[in-house]
């Protein structure tokens, strides 16, 4: 153990851990995260489910994260299986192993964890006594590449439906029925999708011909209807290691109505729902006193949009800053209101402030429905530098639909403009720094851009090189995403069931931790595609509206007409307004899922 890097990843025993009596539980769930501890424990969804399940007297939830290669080697050398952190039970002893699927480049880690946990990777190879392997998270909005590895997926928000589903599994255990019978019952719940109950056929050119339901199931996204009273953890786990988000993170609102056309989260977490401010403060007091944390963060997709954000922040700062607790607010809009908020509570301005214009020109920002103007950015930059910040981060994407050379130039122009403003306020400014962060646009399922083409590796590199030549100089820094990783992400995120073999083959060749630049081996993947006779570029091409998409049988509440209209409006460079402040955009979610947006301030 002493020779393994960061042994604290595997020891458990964190403050507020819940280690329940294994033998007293009727249902035992392993919450599995296919990345390392520091990332997995930072994920709020699993924290919610961990406590939600453990609060049930007859149910038990334990955690397991992907072991780093050095610990994998140790397990193999000792002939040991991958164990949970709480009761140190082998993964294959659980009734349910639930994976949180946040990122496509962690798919091979799922296979590693199943294998190390003593569970056959294909559902078809699993016996009745093997755990039910289930998956949730944003990736399951197109889970098709993983279809063969999972018994079922939970699409959407799990916290309302999961206790009922686990109760059904508990009853099933007592009856001695087969798994096949269980799955037939479970798929009657909203949110449950059993991939084996759908048969996919293909056209000779590789496109999907038909996705045939074998049982008549119609999978639909699960959604929390009573969000204001929705469960939130009270016993926040406090790790010993430095994790990515090492603080109390409180989700103040879910969903976003901005309607950016590239943003999957903005589409799949609709409608927007807020928690009551008083309840948030009350919970925070409890969480801070039982964790001893020195930092708290009020999270959501767009925190400044929370209707009572001023009141909430004022109260929170009044309560917690005298105790030396830092309050932070991620995901700020580019406007002076946000800067004003940030200025008032963020006493430490050594860190950087991030703005996300996303695109370089006004035109392209209209295409993606990012209602931000150059003037917004200029005003916000003035305000930020004036307030004392010297580090500004600007976040952009390349490869957005309709992008031209002018749009790329626009990225560089904005960077220099912001730098110029910074120099006005910090003329000596040794710490002045503008970081331009550029990622490659990856079209995602269930967004208006789901039909769009993703740029090739060569084009990505060409665009990155252009920016590299333009954006250089003192106080400027340019970051970009690995073009090969974005390419693979693009393939997997809009992939179909035929990719299971490719994932398995790449994994057998040694692919894992593909999202880690020091571990990523693109060649293994290309070998796997060649070996399986699959052309990877097939998956990043543009699609016609009449093409059957791999995820078209999954109902997310978003109407196809809405997504299509939004895609068309992008071509026309027309903005769509926010349904929080303006009229309904008829995205379909409120009516289809029978839940309406809820805004506290109204």
């Amino acid at each position, binding site marked *: 153990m002493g020779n393994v890097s960061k042994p604290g990843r595997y*020891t458990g025993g964190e403050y507020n851990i819940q280690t329940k009596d294994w033998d007293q539980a009727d249902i035992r769930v392993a919450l599995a995260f296919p990345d390392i501890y520091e990332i997995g424990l930072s994920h709020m969804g699993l924290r919610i489910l961990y406590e939600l399940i453990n609060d049930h007297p007859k149910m038990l939830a334990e955690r397991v994260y992907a072991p780093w290669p050095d610990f994998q080697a140790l397990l193999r050398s000792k002939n040991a299986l991958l164990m949970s952190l709480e009761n140190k039970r082998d993964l294959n002893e659980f009734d349910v192993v639930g994976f949180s699927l946040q990122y496509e480049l962690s798919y091979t880690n799922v296979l590693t964890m199943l294998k190390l946990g003593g569970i056959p990777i294909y559902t078809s190879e699993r016996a009745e006594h093997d755990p039910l392997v289930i998956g949730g998270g944003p990736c399951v909005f197109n889970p098709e590449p993983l279809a063969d590895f999972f018994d079922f997926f939970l699409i959407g928000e799990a916290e309302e439906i999961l206790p009922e589903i686990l109760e059904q599994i508990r009853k099933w255990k007592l009856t001695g029925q087969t798994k096949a019978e269980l799955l037939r019952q479970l798929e009657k719940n909203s949110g449950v999708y059993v991939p084996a109950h759908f048969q996919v056929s293909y056209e000779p050119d590789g496109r999907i011909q038909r996705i045939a339901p074998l049982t008549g199931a119609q999978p639909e996204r699960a959604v929390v209807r009573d969000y204001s009273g929705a469960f939130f953890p009270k016993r926040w786990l406090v790790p*010993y290691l430095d994790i990515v988000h090492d603080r109390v993170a409180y989700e103040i609102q879910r969903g976003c109505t901005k309607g950016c056309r590239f943003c999957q989260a903005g589409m799949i977490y609709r409608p927007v729902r807020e928690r009551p401010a008083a309840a948030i403060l009350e919970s925070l007091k409890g969480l*801070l006193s*039982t964790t001893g*944390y020195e930092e708290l963060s009020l999270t959501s997709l767009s925190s400044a949009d929370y209707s009572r954000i001023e009141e909430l922040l004022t109260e929170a700062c009044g309560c917690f800053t005298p105790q*030396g607790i830092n309050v932070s607010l991620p995901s700020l809009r580019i406007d002076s209101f946000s800067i004003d908020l940030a200025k008032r509570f963020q006493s*430490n301005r050594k860190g950087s402030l991030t703005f996300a214009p996303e695109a370089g020109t006004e035109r392209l920002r209209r295409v993606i429905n990012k209602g931000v103007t150059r003037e917004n950015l200029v005003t916000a930059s003035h305000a930020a530098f004036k307030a004392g910040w010297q580090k500004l981060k600007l976040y952009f994407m390349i490869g957005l639909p309709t992008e031209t050379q002018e749009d790329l130039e626009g990225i560089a122009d904005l960077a220099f403009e912001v730098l110029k403003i910074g120099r006005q306020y910090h003329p000596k400014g040794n710490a002045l720094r503008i970081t331009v962060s550029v990622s490659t646009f990856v079209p995602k399922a269930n967004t208006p851009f789901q039909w769009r083409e993703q740029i090739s590796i060569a084009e990505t590199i060409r665009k990155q090189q252009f920016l590299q030549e333009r954006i250089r100089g003192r106080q400027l820094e340019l970051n970009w995403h690995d073009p090969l990783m974005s390419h693979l992400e693009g393939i997997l995120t809009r992939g179909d069931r035929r990719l299971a073999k490719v994932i398995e083959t790449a994994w057998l060749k040694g692919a894992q931790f593909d999202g880690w630049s020091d571990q990523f081996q693109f060649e293994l993947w290309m070998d796997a595609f060649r070996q399986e006779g699959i052309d990877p570029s097939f998956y990043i091409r543009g699609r016609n509206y009449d093409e059957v998409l791999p995820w078209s049988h999954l109902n997310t509440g978003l109407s196809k007409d809405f997504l299509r209209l939004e895609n068309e409006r992008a071509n026309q460079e027309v903005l769509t307004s926010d349904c929080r402040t303006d009229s309904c955009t008829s995205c379909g979610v409120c009516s289809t899922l029978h839940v309406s947006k809820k805004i506290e301030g109204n």
Partner: protein
Amino acid sequence: MAKYRIRFSKENNLKYLSHLEIIKTIERAIRRGRLTMAYSEGYHPHPKLSFGPALAVGISSMDEYFDLELVDHDEPERLAKELNGALPEGLRVLAVKKIETHHPVKSLNAILNRAAYTVELNVAAGAQAEIMSQLDQLKEASEIKIARNTKEGQKVVNIRPWLHNLSTKKINDNILAVYIVGEIGSGGHLRPEDIIHALPQPVEIVSIVRTGLWHEEQGRVLKPMDFCDGTGGV
């Protein structure tokens, strides 16, 4: 304001925590214990909390220290109780002593220059006598040279001047215990495992425990708690 010197132990799985992780964990326990820490002034205030010499990852300890300044006064016994109620299993406050603030008190790092360790080795009964005699020879040697990784790359260091005492004891047929007292602090730093690695053959280390920290000067031995009244004699 009130200052305290606190002695604690670090055991079980928490021996895998790094020095910084220990600091963070204790800081959070202080907050959970509803104790109000004093903060430094300035642009980026931080709690007035200072720790003794770092312990390497994987070594447990029965004798660690930190100094803490609180806004409120508290009885040492009650403070110990509150901290122990908020600390995770594996970290335990063993003693608390109030520091008299009207005398300047040197920091833990400035005073501590000796550390004692118990190293348990996995040695079969038949080989114990030989290992014991080899360790005795190390103690008698005029120099013990080992390779150490430094910022400038590997360097050969003579650790003999830092070894102040060494004795061995047979625990059972498999385990041999080695007691080591070494220099720490600005005058040099002895790592107990370096002594074991200096043996002519590889020997498996079962565990290392730090059993004591103190100040020694011209034969006088002072524990950190002896400095709390500000006299300390040095």
